[in-house]
Protein backbone atom coordinates (compact mmCIF):
# COMPACT_ATOMS: atom_id res chain seq x y z
CA UNK A 1 0.00 0.00 0.00
CA UNK A 2 1.38 3.37 -1.01
CA UNK A 3 2.01 5.50 2.04
CA UNK A 4 0.42 8.49 0.39
CA UNK A 5 -2.96 6.76 0.23
CA UNK A 6 -5.38 8.29 2.71
CA UNK A 7 -6.54 5.51 5.01
CA UNK A 8 -10.18 4.67 4.38
CA UNK A 9 -12.33 3.85 7.35
CA UNK A 10 -15.62 2.01 7.47
CA UNK A 11 -17.02 4.74 9.65
CA UNK A 12 -18.97 7.10 7.44
CA UNK A 13 -19.21 10.34 9.27
CA UNK A 14 -21.59 11.99 6.85
CA UNK A 15 -22.36 15.67 6.86
CA UNK A 16 -23.13 15.92 10.58
CA UNK A 17 -19.48 16.06 11.51
CA UNK A 18 -18.71 19.54 10.27
CA UNK A 19 -18.31 20.81 13.80
CA UNK A 20 -14.70 21.83 13.19
CA UNK A 21 -14.89 22.82 9.54
CA UNK A 22 -17.07 25.93 9.82
CA UNK A 23 -15.29 27.37 12.87
CA UNK A 24 -11.88 27.00 11.20
CA UNK A 25 -13.13 28.64 8.00
CA UNK A 26 -14.47 31.51 10.11
CA UNK A 27 -11.10 31.80 11.84
CA UNK A 28 -9.40 32.02 8.43
CA UNK A 29 -11.85 34.68 7.30
CA UNK A 30 -11.13 36.68 10.43
CA UNK A 31 -7.36 36.33 9.95
CA UNK A 32 -7.64 37.47 6.32
CA UNK A 33 -9.54 40.53 7.47
CA UNK A 34 -6.79 41.20 10.02
CA UNK A 35 -4.16 40.88 7.29
CA UNK A 36 -5.88 43.42 5.04
CA UNK A 37 -6.73 45.72 7.89
CA UNK A 38 -3.52 45.86 9.89
CA UNK A 39 -1.00 43.69 8.07
CA UNK A 40 -0.82 41.06 10.84
CA UNK A 41 -0.12 37.53 9.62
CA UNK A 42 -1.48 34.40 11.29
CA UNK A 43 -0.66 30.71 11.33
CA UNK A 44 -3.08 27.92 12.22
CA UNK A 45 -1.59 24.55 13.19
CA UNK A 46 -4.06 21.98 11.84
CA UNK A 47 -2.49 19.26 13.94
CA UNK A 48 -3.38 21.04 17.17
CA UNK A 49 -7.12 20.65 16.63
CA UNK A 50 -8.80 17.30 17.23
CA UNK A 51 -10.34 16.60 13.86
CA UNK A 52 -12.74 13.78 13.17
CA UNK A 53 -11.88 11.43 10.32
CA UNK A 54 -12.47 13.20 7.04
CA UNK A 55 -12.60 16.71 8.47
CA UNK A 56 -9.07 17.67 7.47
CA UNK A 57 -9.85 16.56 3.93
CA UNK A 58 -13.08 18.58 3.96
CA UNK A 59 -11.26 21.71 5.10
CA UNK A 60 -8.57 21.33 2.42
CA UNK A 61 -11.20 20.74 -0.28
CA UNK A 62 -13.14 23.75 0.93
CA UNK A 63 -10.04 25.93 0.53
CA UNK A 64 -9.30 24.58 -2.94
CA UNK A 65 -6.25 25.46 -5.04
CA UNK A 66 -5.25 28.85 -6.45
CA UNK A 67 -2.52 30.10 -8.72
CA UNK A 68 0.62 29.11 -6.83
CA UNK A 69 1.87 25.63 -6.11
CA UNK A 70 5.43 25.59 -4.79
CA UNK A 71 7.36 22.48 -3.91
CA UNK A 72 10.11 22.53 -1.33
CA UNK A 73 12.66 19.74 -1.18
CA UNK A 74 14.21 20.07 2.26
CA UNK A 75 14.32 17.11 4.62
CA UNK A 76 11.59 15.58 2.55
CA UNK A 77 8.95 17.22 0.42
CA UNK A 78 6.89 20.21 1.44
CA UNK A 79 3.93 21.55 -0.52
CA UNK A 80 3.22 25.25 -0.29
CA UNK A 81 -0.05 25.99 -2.02
CA UNK A 82 -1.97 29.24 -2.31
CA UNK A 83 -5.59 28.22 -1.93
CA UNK A 84 -8.31 29.70 -4.07
CA UNK A 85 -8.56 32.44 -1.44
CA UNK A 86 -5.65 34.74 -2.11
CA UNK A 87 -3.61 35.27 1.02
CA UNK A 88 -4.57 31.89 2.47
CA UNK A 89 -1.72 29.42 2.05
CA UNK A 90 -1.74 25.71 2.89
CA UNK A 91 1.66 24.33 3.89
CA UNK A 92 2.08 20.58 4.21
CA UNK A 93 5.39 19.15 5.41
CA UNK A 94 6.26 15.57 4.52
CA UNK A 95 9.16 13.50 5.76
CA UNK A 96 11.35 11.42 3.51
CA UNK A 97 8.82 8.57 3.60
CA UNK A 98 6.12 10.82 2.17
CA UNK A 99 4.19 10.81 5.45
CA UNK A 100 2.66 14.07 6.64
CA UNK A 101 4.49 15.43 9.67
CA UNK A 102 2.79 18.79 10.02
CA UNK A 103 0.22 20.97 8.31
CA UNK A 104 -0.27 24.70 8.65
CA UNK A 105 -2.64 27.27 7.22
CA UNK A 106 -0.79 30.57 6.88
CA UNK A 107 -2.64 33.80 6.24
CA UNK A 108 0.05 36.05 4.81
CA UNK A 109 1.25 37.68 1.60
CA UNK A 110 4.11 35.20 1.31
CA UNK A 111 4.97 32.34 3.69
CA UNK A 112 8.35 32.96 5.35
CA UNK A 113 9.66 29.56 4.36
CA UNK A 114 9.37 30.45 0.65
CA UNK A 115 11.70 33.39 1.00
CA UNK A 116 15.41 32.78 0.60
CA UNK A 117 17.02 32.76 4.02
CA UNK A 118 19.76 35.15 5.00
CA UNK A 119 22.07 32.43 6.34
CA UNK A 120 21.66 30.34 3.20
CA UNK A 121 22.38 33.42 1.04
CA UNK A 122 25.55 34.20 2.99
CA UNK A 123 26.71 30.64 2.51
CA UNK A 124 25.80 30.83 -1.18
CA UNK A 125 27.82 34.03 -1.60
CA UNK A 126 30.84 32.36 -0.05
CA UNK A 127 30.46 29.30 -2.29
CA UNK A 128 29.95 31.32 -5.47
CA UNK A 129 32.99 33.44 -4.65
CA UNK A 130 35.10 30.32 -4.18
CA UNK A 131 33.75 28.81 -7.39
CA UNK A 132 34.64 31.93 -9.37
CA UNK A 133 38.10 32.04 -7.79
CA UNK A 134 38.70 28.44 -8.78
CA UNK A 135 37.60 29.21 -12.31
CA UNK A 136 39.88 32.23 -12.54
CA UNK A 137 43.00 30.30 -11.59
Amino acid at each position, binding site marked *: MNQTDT*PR*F*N*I*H*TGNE*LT*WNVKPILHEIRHALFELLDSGNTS*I*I*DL*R*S*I*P*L*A*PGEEETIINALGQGEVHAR*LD*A*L*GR*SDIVETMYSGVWLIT*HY*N*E*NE*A*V*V*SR*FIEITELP*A*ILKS*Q*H*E*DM*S*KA*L*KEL*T*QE*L*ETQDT
Partner: protein
Amino acid sequence: MKKDLSLNDGTPIEGTPEPGTLGETLRSQGVSRRSFMKFCATTASMMALPPSMIPMIAHALENARRPSVIWLSFQECTGCTESLTRAHSPTLESLIFESISLDYHHTLQAASGHAAEAAREAAMEENFGNYLLVVDGSIPLDNPGYSTIAGISNLDMLTESAKGAAAIIAVGTCATYGGIPHANPNPTGAVSVKDIIKDKPIINVPGCPPIPVVITGVLAHYLTFGAIPDLDHIGRPKVFYGQSIHDRCYRRPFYDKGQFAETFDDEGAKKGWCLYKLGCKGPTTYNACATTKWNNGTSFPIESGHPCIGCSEPDFWDGGGFYKALSMPTEDISKTAVYTVAGAAAAGAVIGALNRGKKNNSDKIHIKTTIDDLRK
Protein backbone atom coordinates in the same frame (compact mmCIF):
# COMPACT_ATOMS: atom_id res chain seq x y z
CA MET B 1 40.16 46.42 -10.51
CA LYS B 2 38.59 43.26 -9.34
CA LYS B 3 36.52 43.77 -6.28
CA ASP B 4 37.60 41.46 -3.52
CA LEU B 5 34.51 39.35 -3.05
CA SER B 6 36.17 36.98 -0.71
CA LEU B 7 35.16 37.17 2.87
CA ASN B 8 38.25 35.44 4.13
CA ASP B 9 39.39 38.31 6.29
CA GLY B 10 38.19 36.52 9.37
CA THR B 11 34.90 38.35 9.62
CA PRO B 12 32.38 35.80 10.80
CA ILE B 13 29.67 35.32 8.20
CA GLU B 14 26.36 36.55 9.51
CA GLY B 15 24.29 33.76 10.86
CA THR B 16 27.14 31.30 11.41
CA PRO B 17 26.20 29.22 14.42
CA GLU B 18 28.62 28.83 17.28
CA PRO B 19 30.60 25.63 17.41
CA GLY B 20 29.18 22.84 19.62
CA THR B 21 25.59 23.90 19.18
CA LEU B 22 22.78 22.15 17.40
CA GLY B 23 22.84 24.85 14.73
CA GLU B 24 26.47 24.10 13.94
CA THR B 25 25.83 20.37 13.90
CA LEU B 26 22.98 20.75 11.45
CA ARG B 27 24.82 23.24 9.24
CA SER B 28 27.85 20.97 9.10
CA GLN B 29 25.55 18.21 7.84
CA GLY B 30 24.36 20.45 5.02
CA VAL B 31 20.97 21.17 6.52
CA SER B 32 19.84 24.49 4.99
CA ARG B 33 18.19 27.24 6.96
CA ARG B 34 14.93 26.50 5.17
CA SER B 35 15.13 22.89 6.26
CA PHE B 36 15.87 24.08 9.76
CA MET B 37 12.75 26.30 9.63
CA LYS B 38 10.71 23.32 8.52
CA PHE B 39 12.16 21.36 11.41
CA CYS B 40 11.33 24.11 13.92
CA ALA B 41 7.77 24.45 12.65
CA THR B 42 7.21 20.72 12.99
CA THR B 43 8.88 20.67 16.41
CA ALA B 44 6.64 23.50 17.61
CA SER B 45 3.63 21.52 16.42
CA MET B 46 5.03 18.44 18.17
CA MET B 47 5.46 20.36 21.41
CA ALA B 48 1.89 21.66 21.09
CA LEU B 49 3.18 25.23 21.09
CA PRO B 50 1.46 27.99 19.09
CA PRO B 51 3.00 28.77 15.67
CA SER B 52 3.82 32.28 16.89
CA MET B 53 6.57 30.74 19.02
CA ILE B 54 8.42 29.27 16.03
CA PRO B 55 11.01 32.07 15.76
CA MET B 56 11.80 31.73 19.44
CA ILE B 57 12.15 27.96 19.14
CA ALA B 58 14.40 28.41 16.11
CA HIS B 59 16.65 30.74 18.04
CA ALA B 60 16.76 28.45 21.07
CA LEU B 61 17.43 25.30 19.09
CA GLU B 62 20.11 26.93 17.00
CA ASN B 63 22.06 27.84 20.09
CA ALA B 64 21.29 24.71 22.11
CA ARG B 65 24.17 22.57 23.25
CA ARG B 66 23.91 18.84 22.66
CA PRO B 67 23.27 17.20 26.01
CA SER B 68 24.52 13.73 26.72
CA VAL B 69 21.66 11.25 27.09
CA ILE B 70 21.96 7.91 28.80
CA TRP B 71 19.08 5.53 28.23
CA LEU B 72 18.60 2.73 30.75
CA SER B 73 16.23 -0.14 29.95
CA PHE B 74 15.00 -2.22 32.87
CA GLN B 75 11.95 -4.53 33.13
CA GLU B 76 10.42 -3.47 29.86
CA CYS B 77 9.16 -4.88 26.58
CA THR B 78 11.18 -2.39 24.45
CA GLY B 79 7.87 -1.03 23.15
CA CYS B 80 8.82 2.50 24.19
CA THR B 81 12.05 2.40 22.20
CA GLU B 82 10.14 0.85 19.30
CA SER B 83 7.57 3.61 19.49
CA LEU B 84 10.26 6.26 19.46
CA THR B 85 12.31 4.86 16.65
CA ARG B 86 9.51 3.99 14.27
CA ALA B 87 10.96 4.62 10.86
CA HIS B 88 7.92 6.55 9.68
CA SER B 89 9.82 9.79 10.05
CA PRO B 90 13.49 9.00 9.98
CA THR B 91 14.84 12.39 9.15
CA LEU B 92 12.77 14.91 11.03
CA GLU B 93 12.46 12.92 14.23
CA SER B 94 16.02 11.71 13.95
CA LEU B 95 17.04 15.35 14.00
CA ILE B 96 16.10 15.19 17.65
CA PHE B 97 18.60 12.42 17.93
CA GLU B 98 21.11 14.64 16.14
CA SER B 99 20.48 17.27 18.74
CA ILE B 100 21.32 14.92 21.58
CA SER B 101 24.33 12.74 22.11
CA LEU B 102 22.78 9.35 22.81
CA ASP B 103 25.71 7.80 24.63
CA TYR B 104 24.10 4.60 25.85
CA HIS B 105 21.07 2.60 24.63
CA HIS B 106 20.85 -1.21 24.70
CA THR B 107 18.74 -1.68 21.63
CA LEU B 108 20.27 1.01 19.44
CA GLN B 109 23.94 0.92 20.33
CA ALA B 110 26.47 -1.07 18.36
CA ALA B 111 28.74 -1.80 21.31
CA SER B 112 28.06 -4.54 23.83
CA GLY B 113 29.60 -6.09 26.90
CA HIS B 114 32.36 -4.34 28.78
CA ALA B 115 32.88 -1.79 26.04
CA ALA B 116 29.30 -0.62 26.33
CA GLU B 117 29.40 -0.31 30.10
CA ALA B 118 32.73 1.49 29.89
CA ALA B 119 31.20 3.95 27.41
CA ARG B 120 28.35 4.60 29.81
CA GLU B 121 30.61 5.22 32.74
CA ALA B 122 32.85 7.50 30.69
CA ALA B 123 29.87 9.56 29.49
CA MET B 124 28.53 9.85 33.02
CA GLU B 125 31.87 10.99 34.39
CA GLU B 126 32.53 13.45 31.59
CA ASN B 127 29.12 15.09 31.85
CA PHE B 128 28.57 14.72 35.57
CA GLY B 129 25.67 16.90 36.66
CA ASN B 130 24.58 17.68 33.12
CA TYR B 131 23.46 14.52 31.40
CA LEU B 132 19.86 13.46 30.84
CA LEU B 133 18.91 10.05 32.15
CA VAL B 134 16.09 8.33 30.27
CA VAL B 135 14.62 5.22 31.85
CA ASP B 136 12.11 2.74 30.50
CA GLY B 137 10.93 -0.37 32.33
CA SER B 138 10.18 -0.94 36.00
CA ILE B 139 12.65 -1.87 38.71
CA PRO B 140 12.17 -5.11 40.71
CA LEU B 141 12.70 -4.76 44.43
CA ASP B 142 11.71 -8.19 45.71
CA ASN B 143 14.96 -9.66 44.52
CA PRO B 144 17.24 -7.29 42.64
CA GLY B 145 18.63 -10.30 40.84
CA TYR B 146 15.40 -10.62 38.84
CA SER B 147 16.66 -8.07 36.33
CA THR B 148 20.32 -7.29 35.80
CA ILE B 149 22.49 -5.76 33.10
CA ALA B 150 26.13 -6.80 32.91
CA GLY B 151 25.74 -8.26 36.38
CA ILE B 152 24.53 -4.95 37.82
CA SER B 153 21.02 -4.98 39.26
CA ASN B 154 18.51 -2.43 37.95
CA LEU B 155 18.25 -0.84 41.37
CA ASP B 156 22.00 -0.33 41.62
CA MET B 157 22.33 0.94 38.05
CA LEU B 158 19.51 3.43 38.54
CA THR B 159 20.75 4.84 41.84
CA GLU B 160 24.29 5.02 40.49
CA SER B 161 23.34 6.71 37.22
CA ALA B 162 20.94 9.12 38.86
CA LYS B 163 23.67 10.70 40.94
CA GLY B 164 25.10 12.84 38.13
CA ALA B 165 21.92 13.35 36.12
CA ALA B 166 20.52 16.83 35.55
CA ALA B 167 17.04 15.36 35.14
CA ILE B 168 15.43 11.98 34.68
CA ILE B 169 12.81 11.22 32.04
CA ALA B 170 10.81 8.10 32.88
CA VAL B 171 9.38 6.84 29.59
CA GLY B 172 6.42 4.47 29.49
CA THR B 173 3.94 3.39 32.13
CA CYS B 174 6.36 0.79 33.49
CA ALA B 175 8.99 3.35 34.43
CA THR B 176 6.46 5.97 35.54
CA TYR B 177 4.01 3.91 37.55
CA GLY B 178 5.18 0.29 37.48
CA GLY B 179 3.19 -0.79 34.44
CA ILE B 180 2.43 -4.40 33.68
CA PRO B 181 5.07 -5.91 36.01
CA HIS B 182 3.43 -3.96 38.83
CA ALA B 183 -0.02 -5.40 38.06
CA ASN B 184 -1.65 -7.84 40.45
CA PRO B 185 0.08 -9.92 41.95
CA ASN B 186 3.33 -8.07 41.18
CA PRO B 187 5.58 -11.13 41.50
CA THR B 188 8.85 -9.22 41.17
CA GLY B 189 8.02 -6.37 43.52
CA ALA B 190 8.24 -3.95 40.58
CA VAL B 191 8.26 -0.23 41.37
CA SER B 192 8.61 2.93 39.33
CA VAL B 193 11.53 5.35 39.06
CA LYS B 194 9.87 7.91 41.31
CA ASP B 195 9.52 5.31 44.04
CA ILE B 196 13.31 4.99 44.19
CA ILE B 197 14.80 8.35 43.21
CA LYS B 198 13.67 11.17 45.45
CA ASP B 199 16.28 13.87 44.96
CA LYS B 200 16.25 14.55 41.21
CA PRO B 201 13.64 16.19 38.97
CA ILE B 202 11.71 13.42 37.23
CA ILE B 203 9.53 13.92 34.15
CA ASN B 204 7.00 11.12 33.78
CA VAL B 205 6.02 10.33 30.19
CA PRO B 206 3.55 7.46 30.61
CA GLY B 207 1.69 5.49 27.97
CA CYS B 208 1.85 1.92 26.84
CA PRO B 209 3.73 2.98 24.80
CA PRO B 210 3.76 6.77 24.90
CA ILE B 211 3.01 8.57 21.65
CA PRO B 212 6.37 8.97 19.84
CA VAL B 213 5.99 12.71 19.27
CA VAL B 214 5.27 13.12 22.98
CA ILE B 215 8.62 11.56 23.83
CA THR B 216 10.48 13.66 21.28
CA GLY B 217 8.42 16.69 22.25
CA VAL B 218 9.58 16.40 25.86
CA LEU B 219 13.19 16.06 24.69
CA ALA B 220 12.71 19.04 22.38
CA HIS B 221 11.27 21.06 25.24
CA TYR B 222 14.29 20.32 27.41
CA LEU B 223 16.55 21.26 24.52
CA THR B 224 14.75 24.48 23.70
CA PHE B 225 14.13 25.80 27.16
CA GLY B 226 16.84 23.99 29.11
CA ALA B 227 14.31 23.18 31.83
CA ILE B 228 11.67 20.59 32.54
CA PRO B 229 8.13 21.44 31.40
CA ASP B 230 5.23 22.18 33.76
CA LEU B 231 4.21 18.93 35.44
CA ASP B 232 0.85 17.80 36.85
CA HIS B 233 0.36 16.21 40.27
CA ILE B 234 1.76 12.85 39.14
CA GLY B 235 4.72 14.26 37.26
CA ARG B 236 3.40 14.30 33.69
CA PRO B 237 4.00 17.31 31.37
CA LYS B 238 0.76 19.27 31.40
CA VAL B 239 1.22 20.26 27.76
CA PHE B 240 0.64 16.66 26.64
CA TYR B 241 -1.21 15.16 29.59
CA GLY B 242 -3.24 18.16 30.67
CA GLN B 243 -6.47 17.07 29.03
CA SER B 244 -8.35 13.84 29.21
CA ILE B 245 -9.12 11.83 26.09
CA HIS B 246 -12.80 12.39 26.83
CA ASP B 247 -12.50 16.17 26.76
CA ARG B 248 -10.87 16.13 23.33
CA CYS B 249 -12.61 13.11 21.81
CA TYR B 250 -14.34 13.80 18.53
CA ARG B 251 -17.06 11.32 19.56
CA ARG B 252 -17.96 13.44 22.60
CA PRO B 253 -21.13 14.85 21.04
CA PHE B 254 -22.45 11.29 20.90
CA TYR B 255 -21.68 10.79 24.61
CA ASP B 256 -23.46 14.04 25.43
CA LYS B 257 -26.48 12.97 23.41
CA GLY B 258 -26.49 9.48 24.90
CA GLN B 259 -25.80 7.62 21.64
CA PHE B 260 -23.63 4.63 22.49
CA ALA B 261 -22.37 1.61 20.57
CA GLU B 262 -23.58 -1.53 22.36
CA THR B 263 -21.35 -4.06 20.61
CA PHE B 264 -18.37 -3.82 18.29
CA ASP B 265 -20.31 -4.34 15.11
CA ASP B 266 -23.78 -2.90 15.65
CA GLU B 267 -25.29 0.09 13.87
CA GLY B 268 -24.04 2.49 16.52
CA ALA B 269 -20.48 1.24 16.17
CA LYS B 270 -20.66 1.62 12.39
CA LYS B 271 -21.91 5.17 12.77
CA GLY B 272 -19.01 5.98 15.06
CA TRP B 273 -20.98 6.46 18.26
CA CYS B 274 -19.46 6.75 21.73
CA LEU B 275 -17.69 3.66 23.09
CA TYR B 276 -18.48 4.26 26.77
CA LYS B 277 -20.55 1.11 27.10
CA LEU B 278 -17.78 -0.98 25.59
CA GLY B 279 -15.46 -0.03 28.41
CA CYS B 280 -13.82 3.20 27.21
CA LYS B 281 -11.61 4.68 29.92
CA GLY B 282 -11.35 7.99 28.05
CA PRO B 283 -13.10 9.96 30.81
CA THR B 284 -10.46 9.12 33.41
CA THR B 285 -7.38 9.01 31.14
CA TYR B 286 -5.07 11.92 30.50
CA ASN B 287 -3.00 11.77 27.31
CA ALA B 288 -2.61 13.47 23.93
CA CYS B 289 -4.09 10.66 21.84
CA ALA B 290 -7.22 12.55 20.81
CA THR B 291 -5.32 15.56 19.45
CA THR B 292 -1.82 14.45 18.53
CA LYS B 293 -2.96 10.93 17.59
CA TRP B 294 -0.66 8.12 16.49
CA ASN B 295 1.42 7.42 13.39
CA ASN B 296 1.78 11.09 12.56
CA GLY B 297 -1.81 11.92 13.16
CA THR B 298 -3.34 8.96 11.36
CA SER B 299 -5.69 7.77 14.05
CA PHE B 300 -6.03 6.67 17.65
CA PRO B 301 -7.81 3.69 19.28
CA ILE B 302 -11.23 5.31 19.61
CA GLU B 303 -11.15 6.55 16.03
CA SER B 304 -10.36 3.00 14.96
CA GLY B 305 -13.35 1.72 16.91
CA HIS B 306 -11.71 0.36 20.07
CA PRO B 307 -12.36 1.89 23.51
CA CYS B 308 -9.48 3.61 25.26
CA ILE B 309 -7.76 1.31 27.77
CA GLY B 310 -6.33 4.14 29.86
CA CYS B 311 -2.71 3.14 29.29
CA SER B 312 -1.17 6.37 30.59
CA GLU B 313 -2.77 6.08 34.02
CA PRO B 314 -1.30 4.21 37.02
CA ASP B 315 -2.60 0.68 37.56
CA PHE B 316 -4.67 0.63 34.39
CA TRP B 317 -4.12 -3.12 34.11
CA ASP B 318 -6.05 -3.63 37.35
CA GLY B 319 -8.82 -1.20 36.52
CA GLY B 320 -11.52 -3.85 36.27
CA GLY B 321 -11.01 -4.92 32.67
CA PHE B 322 -10.74 -3.12 29.35
CA TYR B 323 -14.30 -3.92 28.35
CA LYS B 324 -15.97 -3.07 31.66
CA ALA B 325 -17.51 0.40 31.56
CA LEU B 326 -16.34 2.90 34.15
CA SER B 327 -19.65 2.76 35.99
CA MET B 328 -19.37 -0.98 36.49
CA PRO B 329 -17.87 -2.42 39.68
CA THR B 330 -14.47 -4.02 39.35
CA GLU B 331 -15.29 -6.96 41.59
CA ASP B 332 -18.14 -9.45 41.69
CA ILE B 333 -20.88 -7.62 43.59
CA SER B 334 -23.73 -10.00 42.80
CA LYS B 335 -21.93 -12.87 44.49
CA THR B 336 -21.33 -10.74 47.57
CA ALA B 337 -24.95 -9.67 47.60
CA VAL B 338 -26.25 -13.23 47.35
CA TYR B 339 -23.99 -14.49 50.13
CA THR B 340 -24.90 -11.51 52.27
CA VAL B 341 -28.61 -12.17 51.81
CA ALA B 342 -28.10 -15.76 52.87
CA GLY B 343 -25.99 -14.80 55.86
CA ALA B 344 -28.28 -11.97 56.85
CA ALA B 345 -31.34 -14.18 56.52
CA ALA B 346 -29.80 -16.59 58.96
CA ALA B 347 -28.81 -13.77 61.29
CA GLY B 348 -32.23 -12.19 60.89
CA ALA B 349 -33.93 -15.47 61.74
CA VAL B 350 -31.85 -15.79 64.88
CA ILE B 351 -32.40 -12.19 65.94
CA GLY B 352 -36.07 -12.47 65.16
CA ALA B 353 -36.35 -15.62 67.23
CA LEU B 354 -34.55 -13.93 70.11
CA ASN B 355 -36.90 -10.94 69.89
CA ARG B 356 -39.89 -13.25 69.89
CA GLY B 357 -38.48 -15.01 72.89
CA LYS B 358 -38.10 -11.67 74.67
CA LYS B 359 -41.68 -10.75 73.83
CA ASN B 360 -43.08 -14.06 75.08
CA ASN B 361 -40.93 -13.79 78.17
CA SER B 362 -42.21 -10.36 78.95
CA ASP B 363 -45.76 -11.69 78.68
CA LYS B 364 -44.89 -14.43 81.13
CA ILE B 365 -43.23 -12.22 83.73
CA HIS B 366 -45.97 -9.65 83.40
CA ILE B 367 -47.36 -8.85 86.84
CA LYS B 368 -50.81 -7.38 86.95
CA THR B 369 -50.91 -4.02 88.67
CA THR B 370 -53.87 -3.59 91.00
CA ILE B 371 -55.32 -0.43 92.48
CA ASP B 372 -53.75 -1.36 95.81
CA ASP B 373 -50.27 -1.31 94.20
CA LEU B 374 -50.96 2.18 92.95
CA ARG B 375 -52.08 3.33 96.41
CA LYS B 376 -48.83 2.17 97.97
